[in-house]
């Protein structure tokens, strides 16, 4: 009887402690998986090791960044909030893709359009037919009667 009571109370205490632990764990949120961390990490580049995405960078600095992403995810921060935090802290150059600003797309588009227009105009100029004798005659009719007569004779012989 005594031993069964001890076993009952032990079980009760264990259940209470387990409940408390589970409660505190759920308050912190589930621990983000490596995949969840890397989904954000691969969109970031650490300035220390340029050209290596954060998700595969082996340096200590990048490991710390990944830990920070994990912590922020566990705190319930969204992907956008985390990226914004990194941009604020380390600058826009940490982003794999440039920030979605109007100028980022407008400047190259304007440059391409301008270049295309200039090429078009250039080709237009080069492709124009060359000036013929007839054009020149029409443009500049001769005033000298001798020359005019000569040209008339030449036309007849053609």
């Amino acid at each position: 009887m005594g031993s069964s009571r001890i076993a009952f109370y032990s079980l009760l205490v264990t259940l209470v402690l387990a409940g408390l632990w589970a409660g505190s764990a759920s308050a912190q949120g589930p621990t983000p998986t490596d995949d969840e961390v890397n989904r954000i990490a691969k969109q970031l580049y650490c300035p220390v090791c340029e050209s290596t995405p954060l998700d595969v960078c082996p340096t200590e600095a990048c490991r710390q960044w990944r830990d920070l992403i994990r912590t922020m995810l566990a705190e319930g921060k969204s992907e956008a909030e985390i990226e914004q935090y990194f941009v604020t802290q380390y600058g826009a150059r940490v982003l794999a893709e440039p920030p979605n600003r109007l100028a980022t797309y407008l400047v190259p588009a304007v440059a391409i359009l301008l270049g295309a227009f200039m090429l078009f105009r250039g080709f237009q100029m080069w492709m124009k037919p060359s000036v013929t004798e007839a054009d020149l005659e029409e443009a500049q009719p001769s005033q000298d009667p001798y020359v005019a007569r000569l040209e008339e004779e030449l036309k007849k012989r053609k």
Partner: protein
Amino acid sequence: MTESSVPAPRRGVPIWAQIIIWVFLAGLLVIVALGLRRAQQGTVQPGQVIDDFTLPLYSGYELDGQSEIHFEDLRGKVVVINFWASWCKPCEQEAAELQQAWAEYEPTGQVIFLGVDYVDTEPEARVYLKKFGVTYPNGPDLATQISQYFRTKGVPETYFIDQDGVLQYVQVGPFNNIEQIRAQIDPLLE
């Protein structure tokens, strides 16, 4: 006899287009040249007057209760700027010496040490500062603006700036002993 064509007056690219093309090419060359020059320049050089910048400070590492430092406000004092990071092993070599030097010069009121935490995470930075007992003002290099201005090549690097805001010496890599730090500060105080 057929109608023969005569050489047409030469029609090239219009002058305005030529100007635009050349200006564009010249601009492109200037950008490339500036980039190459910057890449080869190294850090800012002694003799250069350091422009104003703002360093936000970690809580617990403020200067006179202020949460950020404006470099211009430090005119009249020798400023020692140390770039470091918690992931940087060589930084650990000099951390104790820097703190020891700060403890020596702080009472004079003529020298300020600033720790600029480069590309670091605050939790790890705090662990580092606590581990080495650092007490001088420290803060993050937000958006790496300060390190870009100084054109640092890595960490640790330490810059000694005189009372007029003129850079006097650059230490690339860690100090091996406190004498090396004194050797740069003492002449500036004379």
